[in-house]
């Protein structure tokens, strides 16, 4: 886990975002047990309190759950994971299209570029 933080934004929000990506990309697998708050904090070099806050937020989003006395686990809910994946995919696509339009490309030109992706 190599997390990079931007001091201009709340650290816990960045932790939530980066952990979300670890979860939806399967780097931390569905149903897998998470390391302890302290270990996660040490790995990502943040304050354990900040990590605790980020995990609480992930739990609110139902991406992780707590098994009493046993620790925290990544959700097994595939539908939920797909929903988050879809949300990220839409955000990234929107960002890409906006950037291409700023460069002066129209929709059909953008589609042409997407088709030649294997040459890039």
């Amino acid at each position, binding site marked *: 886990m190599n997390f990079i933080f931007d*001091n201009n934004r*709340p650290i816990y929000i960045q932790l939530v975002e980066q952990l979300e990506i670890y979860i939806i990309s399967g780097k931390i697998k569905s149903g897998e047990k998470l390391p302890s708050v302290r270990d996660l904090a040490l790995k990502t070099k943040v304050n354990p*309190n900040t990590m605790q806050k980020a995990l609480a937020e992930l739990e609110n989003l139902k991406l992780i759950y707590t098994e009493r006395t046993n620790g925290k686990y990544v959700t097994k809910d595939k539908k939920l994971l797909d929903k988050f994946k879809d949300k990220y995919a839409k955000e990234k696509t929107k960002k890409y299209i906006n950037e291409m339009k700023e460069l002066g490309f129209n929709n059909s030109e953008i589609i042409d570029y997407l088709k030649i992706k294997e040459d890039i």
Partner: protein
Amino acid sequence: MELLECIHIYKDYDKKQVLKDINLKIPRGKIIGLLGKNGMGKTTLIKLINDLLTPTSGKILINGESIGINSKKIISYLPERTYLDKSMTIKETLKYFEDFYDNFDTKKAKKLIKDLDLEIDTKISKMSKGMQEKLQLILVMSRNALLYILDEPLGGVDPATRDYILDTILNNFNEDASVIISTHLISDIERILDEVIFIDKGKIILASDADKLREKENGSIDEIFRRMFKC
């Protein structure tokens, strides 16, 4: 009960007022940044908490008790300037700390020293400045204290040493204890802070949760500080 409470603290040097009505509550389990430019009262406040100076008026409570023998037992303090006897070896220094403090964890200190590849028979005067800084931090963090007070722990260290210092603070602080870090090098340290206290011209200007402040003011703690004090 708060770990540390400062109630209406004033401190004058002759006719100069260096601290004006400082009110402060520090809970357990937090890393707190005491942030301010040089000469604004940070070190004076720290010396008051450590009983090295006496307030002109006001009261300081540690764990609910007035400052005294008990408070010294639970505070582990890293002063701005080195206090180690450089003619001593690391081994002798460890013995000195062991004799001096009941709560000094020699095993922990030895492990941290070993992690640095330092030989225990090395004389402190033979160590680089960066290594001396690291050793001092190890000694301070190896006490099982409730309040760690680090005065400018990053003064003049290189980026690798800075990372080591931040990691060592994070690795060795527990939920019962709090750490107060005084510094003017905000950007280097702000990532690990729970709470920030801005001190200027002897007064506390702002005290806030670090992430809430970033959210509210839309910027880094360093930037917010610069905006406020235009330095």
